[in-house]
C-alpha cells in the first residue's frame, strides 16, 4: 500500500510538470506581444525593448521555459500587473473561498447523490426512480449561471430568506484565519453566529455548483447498484441470511462505489472550473472571480496562476480517488 501511494505521488509530480508546460505553451502561443501589452499603448519601441529584456522575453523559448519552471519550483508565479502583488500570494488568499465552496458542493453531491442513487436502484422503475430521473436530467441540462440567477431571484429577492451574494456581510468580522474556510474557522473560534451567517451565504452557490455533480453521481451510482445487485455474491449473501439492509448498504454499495468514486474525482475538477461562472454570479471572492477580473484587465499572470492552481487541486483530488480505490478494492493494492 505504501509503495502504491508513493508511486501515485510520483505520477502527481509528473502530471504537474505537464500542466506547467502546457500553460507555458498556451501563454506563448496566444496572440499579442506580452511586452507591448505590459508597456501600454503609448510606449515607445525603446520602452518595449527594455521591458522585453526585463521580463526575459528576448530569450529563446526553451530558455524561457527553463526560467519559468525554475520560478515555479521556487513558488514564483510572477506579479499581477493590476495589483503589483505576487500572484501566488493572491491566489493563496482567494483559494480558501473557492475550496470551501467546492467542498460544500461536493459534500452535498455525495450525501444526496449516493443514497438517492442507491434507493433508485433498489426501487428501480418505482415512483422515486422516476422522480430522480427527471431530477438528474435537469441537473445536467440546466446552465449554472441561469440556475444561479433563478435561485437568487426566488430565495433572496422574493422570499428574502438568503443573502444574494458575497461570502460574509461587510459588517461581520471574519473569524481569525486558521484554515481560511469560514465555516471551519468560525467553529474553531466558537463563533456560531458567524458560522450561521456564512452558511447562509454559501448555501445557494453551493447548490448551483453541486446540482450537475449530484445528478451524475446519482446516475452512476444507480446504474452500478443495479448491476451489482444482480451479481452472484449478492444472491449468495441473501441465501446465507444476511439482512437486506446490510446487503444493499454495505455489500453492494462498497462494490458500486468504485465507479462512483471515479465520477466524483472527475466532477471535482469540473467544479473547480465551474467556479469561474458561479463565483461571478454570486460575487464569491474566490480564484474563479479573481481569474475573471484579471482576464478582463488583460492581466495574464494571475490567469495562468489560477489555471495551475486548479490543475494542482484536480490532480490532488484524483490522486486521493486512486488511493481510495486501492483502499476499497484489495485487488488493486498489488498493482
Amino acid at each position, binding site marked *: 500500500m505504501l509503495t502504491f501511494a508513493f508511486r501515485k505521488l510520483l505520477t502527481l509530480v509528473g502530471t504537474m510538470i505537464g500542466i506547467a508546460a502546457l500553460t507555458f505553451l498556451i501563454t506563448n502561443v496566444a496572440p499579442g506581444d506580452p511586452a507591448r501589452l505590459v508597456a501600454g499603448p503609448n510606449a515607445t519601441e525603446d520602452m518595449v525593448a527594455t521591458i522585453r529584456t526585463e521580463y526575459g522575453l528576448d530569450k529563446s523559448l526553451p530558455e524561457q521555459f527553463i526560467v519559468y519552471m525554475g520560478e515555479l519550483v521556487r513558488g514564483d508565479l510572477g506579479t499581477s500587473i493590476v495589483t503589483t502583488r505576487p500572484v501566488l500570494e493572491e491566489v493563496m488568499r482567494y483559494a480558501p473561498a473557492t475550496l470551501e465552496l467546492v467542498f460544500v458542493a461536493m459534500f452535498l453531491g455525495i450525501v444526496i447523490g449516493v443514497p438517492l442513487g442507491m434507493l433508485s436502484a433498489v426501487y428501480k422503475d418505482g415512483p422515486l426512480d422516476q422522480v430522480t430521473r427527471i431530477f438528474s436530467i435537469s441537473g445536467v441540462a440546466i446552465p449554472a449561471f441561469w440556475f444561479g440567477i433563478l435561485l437568487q431571484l426566488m430565495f433572496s429577492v422574493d422570499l428574502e430568506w438568503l443573502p444574494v451574494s458575497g461570502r460574509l456581510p461587510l459588517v461581520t468580522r471574519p473569524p481569525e484565519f486558521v484554515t481560511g474556510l469560514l465555516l471551519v474557522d468560525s467553529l474553531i473560534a466558537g463563533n456560531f453566529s458567524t458560522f450561521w451567517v456564512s452558511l447562509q451565504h454559501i448555501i445557494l452557490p453551493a447548490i448551483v455548483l453541486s446540482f450537475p455533480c449530484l445528478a451524475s453521481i446519482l446516475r452512476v451510482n444507480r446504474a452500478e447498484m443495479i448491476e451489482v445487485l444482480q451479481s452472484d*455474491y449478492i444472491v449468495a449473501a*441473501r441465501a446465507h*441470511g*444476511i*439482512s437486506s439492509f446490510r446487503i444493499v448498504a454495505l455489500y453492494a454499495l462498497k462494490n458500486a462505489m468504485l465507479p462512483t468514486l471515479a465520477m466524483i474525482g472527475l466532477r471535482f475538477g469540473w467544479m473547480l472550473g465551474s467556479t469561474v461562472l458561479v463565483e461571478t454570479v454570486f460575487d464569491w471572492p474566490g480564484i474563479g472571480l479573481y481569474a475573471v477580473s484579471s482576464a478582463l484587465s488583460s492581466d495574464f499572470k494571475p490567469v495562468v496562476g489560477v489555471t495551475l492552481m486548479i490543475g494542482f487541486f484536480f490532480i490532488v483530488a484524483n490522486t486521493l480517488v486512486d488511493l481510495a480505490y486501492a483502499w*476499497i478494492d484489495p*485487488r488493486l493494492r498489488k498493482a
Partner: protein
Amino acid sequence: MTALLDIKNYRLDIGTFDGPVHVLKGINLSVNRGDTLGIVGESGSGKTVLVRSVLGIGPRNSKVVEGSISFGGQDITNLPEKDWTKIRGIRISMIFQDPMTYLNPLFTIGRQISDVIAAHEKAAGAGVSSRAARRARTEELLDQVGLPNPSMLFSQYPHQLSGGMRQRILIAMALAGKPDILIADEPTTALDVTVQAQVLDLINSLVEKLNLTVIMISHDIGAIATVAKRCAVMYKGEIVEQGMTQDILNRPQHEYTQRLLAAVPDIDVEPERVAAQAADAKPAKRSNLLEAIDLKKVYRSQSGTDFTAVNSISLAVKTGEIFGVVGESGSGKSTLARMLMRLIEPTSGDIIFDGQNISGLSGEPLRQMRRHMQFVFQNPHSALNGRHTIGDAIGEPLRIQTNMSRRDIEARAEALLDIVQLPKMFKYRYPHELSGGQKQRVCIARAIALNPRLLILDEPTSALDISVQAQVLDFLQELRSELNLTYVFISHNLAVIRQICDHTIVMKRGEIVEQGDTEQIFLSPREEYTKALIESGRKTSQAANLQV
C-alpha cells in the same frame, strides 16, 4: 415419519415480455432427514429455479401457480420476507456453482463468514456474540472444511485464493448455521478435475460427520453418483424419473435419462475415428498449416519477478487435423492458444501460418491474416455481448472484415445459423434468450463467418451440459469435414480429447510434457505426469463413477 422437505405438485411460472413461461410443471419431491438427494438435468431444466424456490430466492417475476413447498411441517410456499430470516441460511443453506463469483471481492473471508454468523445469531434472537467469539467460530468452520491455516485465511481476500479453496469457503459459510438441509447447486462444475474429486470427498465426509441432509443438483451425473443415494432426473421443468441412484444408472427408464447416460464421454473407449483411420490404409500426407517455433511468454510483475506462462513450445498443426492441447488449469494452455492467434504478444519465438511468419505482422496484414484463424471461447455466456442480437453478433466479423452490404450480411448470418443448426429467426434474439449450447453454436457460427481455415477452440464444451457437449462435439466434427477446417482443441477433459483429437500435446507448467498421436498417448503414455493425469482423469471421469 413426515418428510423434512415436501414439495407437492409445485408449478411455477415466470412472467416475461411474451407472457408467462412454465418453468416448473408439477414437481413432486420429498426429502427425509439424512437423505442425500441428487437432481440431474441440463441447464434450463428448471433445477436451479426449483432449489432456489425452496430457499425463497426464486427469480423475479415468478409466480407460484399451484402446489406447495413445506419444510419441517411448515408451509413456506409464500412465506413473507421477514419469516425467511429464520430459515434462510440457517435451517436451509446453499453452496453455489461458481466460487469465483459468489464471494464478494471487497471483503475479507473472515468478515464474510462472521457476518453470516452474526446474521444467524440476530435471527435466532439471542443477540450477536463478540467479535472474538465469531472469529473463533469462523476459524473452526474453516478448519472443518479442511482449509489449512484458518487464522491466516481470516484476513485474506477472495482473489488471493484458488477456486478449490473458495468453494470450501462457500461450504463453510453454508455450514455456519448448522443447517437441516444443505443445497449444493453444481458445486463442482467450475472446478478442475483433481479439485472436483476433493470437493466431492469433502461433501461426503461432512454428510457422514454432521449427519447432513443434502440436495445436490448437477448436470454431471457422475458427481451426483458419488454423493447422492437417491436421485431425480429433471427435464423441461418436470421430474421424469426418480429413485435410487444405482437403479437409475443401471436401468434408466425414461428416454431422456437413457440419452443422458449415453452422452457421457468415456476415457476408456476407443473412438470411432481410430477404426476409420485403420480402414483408410494410406493416410494422406498433409502439410503443416500452423507451426510454432520456440514460443515463449514471460509475464513480469511490478515487483520484478518473472512468471513464465509458456516456455519454449514448438508444435506443428497439420492441415485438416484436430490438434489437442490438454493440461490442468494454470498449465499455460489458454496463453498458448491466444499467442497462436497473437491475441497475446509472445515474448519470443515465431508463429508460422501457412508458410508465412506472422509473429512480425502488425496493422493491416495482421488483420487480414486473422480472417483465416478464428477463436471460440470457453464460456459462451460471456463471449457474446448481451446487448447485441444474435444476428449482430454473427454479422460482426463480416462488417469488420468485408465490404458486404447490410442485406448480404443478413443473408449470410441466416445461412450461418442454418449451418450451426439453429432456426433463422434466432437472429432477432438476444443472448440471454438462448441456452448455453445454443450460445456456443452462435459463437461457432460467428467464428466460421469468414470461412477461416483454422479454428482455435479453448475449452469449447466445458461450460456446457454433458448431453449438449456431446451434440457440440459431434457437430464440430461434422463441421470440420464440411468446411475443411483445422482445429486446435484445448481441454482439461481427457475423455473429450481422446474422443476427437488426432494429435495431442500434454502441457504442464508452460511446457510440453509429451506429444504424439492421441491413441498412442492414451494407450501407452511415456511420461509419469501423463500417466498420472490419465489415471486421475479415469478416477473422476463421469463414466467411471457410474459403475460404482
